[in-house]
């Protein structure tokens, strides 16, 4: 795994929070989706992908996110994304109209409480 991107999983009651840090490009996105998905037990109601400390995302990261949304949707689990508005990551999410797949919030707590 590329050292530029970090992943922390936090189990919070029925919600799993996956904190992705650093820069997420094709080098880091590979396999990350599977690992996040694996960290979400079927008992959980949903997943919050925390991009608040992510500095960069490219189309590979977006692809991973869409794939995650598809998987969770298949399991009837909710997906929320936290990305502060105005930051590069939020801007990219905006451009690719990710909100069509899952809601995007400016902070983690709003995202968690939305599930």
């Amino acid at each position, binding site marked *: 795994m*590329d*050292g*530029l991107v*970090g992943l922390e999983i936090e189990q919070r009651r029925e919600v799993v929070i996956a904190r992705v*840090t*650093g*820069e997420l*490009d*094709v*080098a880091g996105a*590979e396999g990350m989706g599977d690992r996040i998905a694996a960290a979400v037990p079927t008992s959980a109601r949903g997943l919050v992908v925390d991009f608040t400390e992510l*500095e*960069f*995302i*490219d*189309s*590979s990261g*977006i*692809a991973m996110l869409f794939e995650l949304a598809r998987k969770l949707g298949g399991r009837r689990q909710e997906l929320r994304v936290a990305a502060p508005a105005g930051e*590069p990551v939020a*801007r*990219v999410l905006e*451009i*690719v109209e990710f909100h069509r797949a899952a809601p995007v919030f400016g902070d983690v707590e709003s995202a968690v409480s939305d599930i």
Partner: protein
Amino acid sequence: MPEFFDLRVKARSLAYLFAAGAGLGLLTLAVPHDPAIEELEVIVVVAIAAAIAVVGFAFADRLREWQLQLALAAGTLLLTFGNYYVGESTLYPLLYSWTALYAFSFFTLRVALAHVALLGVCYAALLAIQDPTSPAARWLLAVGAPLVIGLLVSRLLMRLGLEVQRTEEHQTALRQREARTRLVLDTSPDAFVTTDRDGIIVTWNRAAERMFGWSASEAIGTPMRALIIPPEFRDRTDRRHQAMIDTEGAVSTELFDAEYQRRDGSRFPGEATVAKVVVGEEVLVSGFLHDVSERRRRQEERDALLRAQAAQAEAERVTELVSGMQLLVDAALASRSLDDIVADLVARVRDVLDADAATIFLAEEDEQLRIGASSLGTPPDEVDPFPFGDGFAGRVAQRRQPLLAQSPDPADLGDPGMRALDVDSLIGVPLLADAEVTGVLVACASPPRRFTADDLSLLRLAADRVGLAISHARLYERERRIAETLQRSLLPENLPRLPGLGVAARYLPAQDDADVGGDWYDVIPIGGGSVGLVMGDIAGKGLEAASMVGRLRSALRAYALEGHDPAKVVDKLNRLVWTESERSQMATLLYVVVDPAEGVVRWVNAGHPPPLILDGDGAPRYLEGGSSVPLGVLPFPSFRERTAELAPGSTILLYTDGLVETPGAHIDDGMARLASLVRDGPEDPEALCDHIVGALVPAQGTSDDVALLGLRNVPMSDRFTVQLASAPEALSSMRSLLRRWLRHVGAGDQEIADITTACGEAATNAIEHAGPVGGRPFEVSGRLLGGEVQLAVRDFGAWRDPRDGDQGRGLSLMRALMDTVEVAPAPDGTTIWMRHQLREIGRQGGPE
């Protein structure tokens, strides 16, 4: 006429003549004589002649030639005029002839003629006075007669005189010889005894007197057997004596060992050199008797001394051998390479054993022997490995016993170099370690040196320890190989390509130290365009140090990539060293995080020499602050992070103490030297490293490891081109470079993020084109033209149509983020052109 007589004889003769003359004069007075003779005058003449005779006798030894001549002349005148007075003129010729005779006999011809002439003048004058009637006849008589008579008689006399003189000389010589012989005999330390045919002593010298206690007068005339021979040896002496007498021939010499008896009855061992001497009818037996008791005693003393010396020499040799063996063992036990050890050993064995050559054969794992080292310099690969049991060395290995061989078969010599020597004695011992044969030590010697059982047992004593040492050395070699491999694997083989940064490193292991050192360095891209630079030095060497470097390196990478602050990273490392190292291990470490985009460095220094920064303005400075204790010293030291500017164009240099520390010089001097080298050195880090190493590291190598790491923050212009590996890992580097450049040309944060994202998509595309195994590098170039950023991402792969999904999303992202995007596919690759007009005001303003 030669002179035959010495002056003494001449003087005496003349003295006799004058004495005779004086006697004749007295006789003249005694007999009735002519009354005309004046008696008084005769008495005067007689007195003068007598005086001359007395003087002649008294000073015969001291008279000189001229004095004799004067005396002869005086005598001539005396006789002549004496005769005149006497009046017996008939005696003239007789007297005249006597004078001539003496003159001719004693003097040279010229002198003799002068005398004769003088006499002739005298006679002629006298004759003329006496009878003037026939002067001619008288002249004839006066001159002729003495000449003829003088010559003839003098010749006759000379013969006679010579004979007499020879006899005299002979007798004198004989007397002298006798005196000398006596002197020799008397001063001889050996007794000289002569007996006649009946064994009666006839000669007995002083030494004999001293030796036996009998005086010569007591001994001479006594039978020798009774005097000096102990009773039980007398018969034997008699037999020897008789045998000497009976031996044919005049002279025979024999040497006897005998025992003699002194006057007081004491006895001594003697040696006699006995000779039979036949003189006419007489048969004598003479012998030198020598007291050999002193010689025997000395001989015994010398023998004892020689034995003692031999014993001491042997003892010293053994001691030397033992200490030599100790040296061997010391040499063997020193931690050095196996090749060095065996090469040293063979030389020492050769010297210690006083051998011609020595060879060490090393055992391979399959019971084969090969040459490890030869004092003759035989290359190890000259002989193929041979099995145990082959040749002399093979037998030693097979029997696991020391062997000693004399006059060996040359074919048995495993070292071909030895075959050229005249090998007479061969010694071999197995080198054992833990009951395993690790090798065989063989030494050879040529005559007269022969190895003995002592040599063997001593060599055997050393062999066990040497065997152990070789086994250790082999283990050590293995460990060293592992450590070397490990360390090589720990140092970055290729430094990461960091666009916009120039990085170079050098690692120079210590030359005279076979051990692997503990210097290490690393370059870690840690995201966001930052780079971590690491320079460390582990106290200690070898495998342990190398494995410690390995653990530190991987731990540091992990901590750095986790995004910890430098101080936290170093703190965690300290915890690792403190808790994990089995025994107290110490490591210095310098960790520098370079953020080229911000133009700053943050560093933490754990007991390491400070980094050096060279700014564009050319004033190098050491970053002295923030230094703390090395890792592993304290459980909770406080590592403080410091910050310094690293403006574009500046260089930061990290190094280990081996670079600035030279024996005998202060480290400050080394650091000052380094600073001046960097100031005057080239900008490019590779060239700078070469410059520094060339100046500070001696050609023959260093005594300590040297590691050097330089990073230059390459200044930006309004255009850039960079080639990047077609691998996902390159994307991060590209983004950090691009961000720096965009900031440099005045883009705002939003624009930087947008353009970077778009360019990242283009680059991802290029990597995709290169295929899964990578391929040729792709190229990113950019320029600022009229406030517009123009980027080109060019690959050399095959264009793939964007599939639905990812790639299509990438392209739409680019289009959304940039003003224009053009994709230009071509057979040899694809170029994506992108433009973006800058609208925001960047932090750093426009291009310089």
